[in-house]
């Protein structure tokens, strides 16, 4: 099996479709509650703070900080066997939401709370929100 044929593409649902569409257009977006102002990723149908359901999408600045990261030395999915070792990181956007991502320039030196900047990359026809440390 090639990496191409079984790459784990995101499952796009009515709830997440606005997120992936915006990302394909070059914008990283997150949800904000119209009632209490809480902001988060990934998409939810209701606000977990006030339980309101009047939610909107906002575009992120692309600036954030590195919360934590790991380096895979074992591939739990064969699509990633060829890229070992690879990193997966948690980034907190300056607007508050946190997301799973990759750091594209780990050779620059990774450290928690280091500032990062959005880099949108295409992979297997999907736009992914990655970051570089700055």
């Amino acid at each position, binding site marked *: 099996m090639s990496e191409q044929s079984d790459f784990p593409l995101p499952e796009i649902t009515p709830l997440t479709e606005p997120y992936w569409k915006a990302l394909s257009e070059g914008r990283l977006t997150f949800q904000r509650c119209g009632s209490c102002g809480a902001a988060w990723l990934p998409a939810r149908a209701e606000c977990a703070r006030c339980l309101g359901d009047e939610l909107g999408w906002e575009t992120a600045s692309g600036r954030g900080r590195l919360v934590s990261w790991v*380096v895979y030395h074992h591939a739990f999915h064969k699509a990633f066997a060829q890229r070992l070792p690879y990193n997966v990181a948690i980034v907190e956007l300056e607007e508050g939401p946190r997301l799973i991502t990759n750091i594209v320039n780990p050779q620059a030196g990774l450290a928690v709370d280091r500032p990062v900047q959005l880099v949108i990359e295409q992979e297997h026809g999907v736009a992914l929100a990655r970051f570089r440390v700055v």
Partner: protein
Amino acid sequence: MRGNIVIAGIGQTAFGKLPGRSTISMNVEACRKALADAAIDKSVVDAVFVKYPSSRFEGKYGQKVAEALGLQPRIGGVWDQAGASNISMISFAAMAIEAGQCEVALACFADNPNTGSRKVFERSLGDEAAYGWFGVTAGYAMIARRHMAEYGTKHEDLAAVAIACRRHGAANPNAQLRSPLTLERYMSSRFIVEPLRRDDCCLLSDGGAAVLVMSARRARELGVAHPVPILGFGQGQTSWEVPQRPTLTSTCAAISAQTAFRMAGVGLKDIDVAQIYDCFTITVLMTLEDYGFCKKGEVGHFVREGRIEIGGELPINTSGGLLSETGMGGMQLVLEGVRQMRGSATLQVPGARKCVVSNQGGIMHTHSTLILANE
């Protein structure tokens, strides 16, 4: 309620690779042995609490176990808090007995990821599979990295946990992994998901275990030889997935322990031995901190120089824990707590009078605490 409820019997299967054994069959064996341990007949059992096998979820599993046990329990079903389930089931059994809903409860768990499917432990952790976010190990590694960065926690501190558990497991004839570990071998073992190495990760194991829960009064009526009183229990749920969790370096283990110690009316200084859920070494470090055995960030000092090994100030996981005895989700720790309170453990802590047991599940999503006594 303190001390009114006892663990009257314990039972377990062999641990390791048990090809061809169904989880139902292993549950029955563990329950049969728990009944035999208490020397009572199954006819007095009127409640069956079951943790579903992590490796395979199926509906009405609790009824399937009860059917195989030939029982029609007044209370019976499956409880799901992942690895925290076993202590929680014992807690709910105790509360149900106190509330007059049942009298004698079996709580049991069996799983077979070693010879069956381990896919559940390697699956994608959400919609983020495209980023390579797979496997339970990675979630714990994410937490470990942050803990190391915030508090200066070292690989040597993680190693101290693995070394203690492996030393204790080596003394346990029933343990799945009986080779002791040195710091040198730990430091040279390969990373799975950095910063966690192979020796930071628990075993994958087939096996089952069960406990029999009843009131102290009922245990006296039935002539149970070695009842172990439950002094307290508590639970706490962090709930957030790892990426969304506002803080990675503490969990609701703290609330779970506060509840259990308040109920028990004892303090940390009264604890002679601890069985701390060790799915990964970082879990033990954070549980010791969140329970209050040491200040946040000082756990490295706490675990060094053999303090958590037999003969140390707070021996943990005296039968080897998930890292050495068996990777099954938590009931084996309760069994070892019971043996310590009976004075019958292989690595017995001399004169041990109080034992705390922790269970936790998911990626530190759930937590449950049990305090046992020998009084």
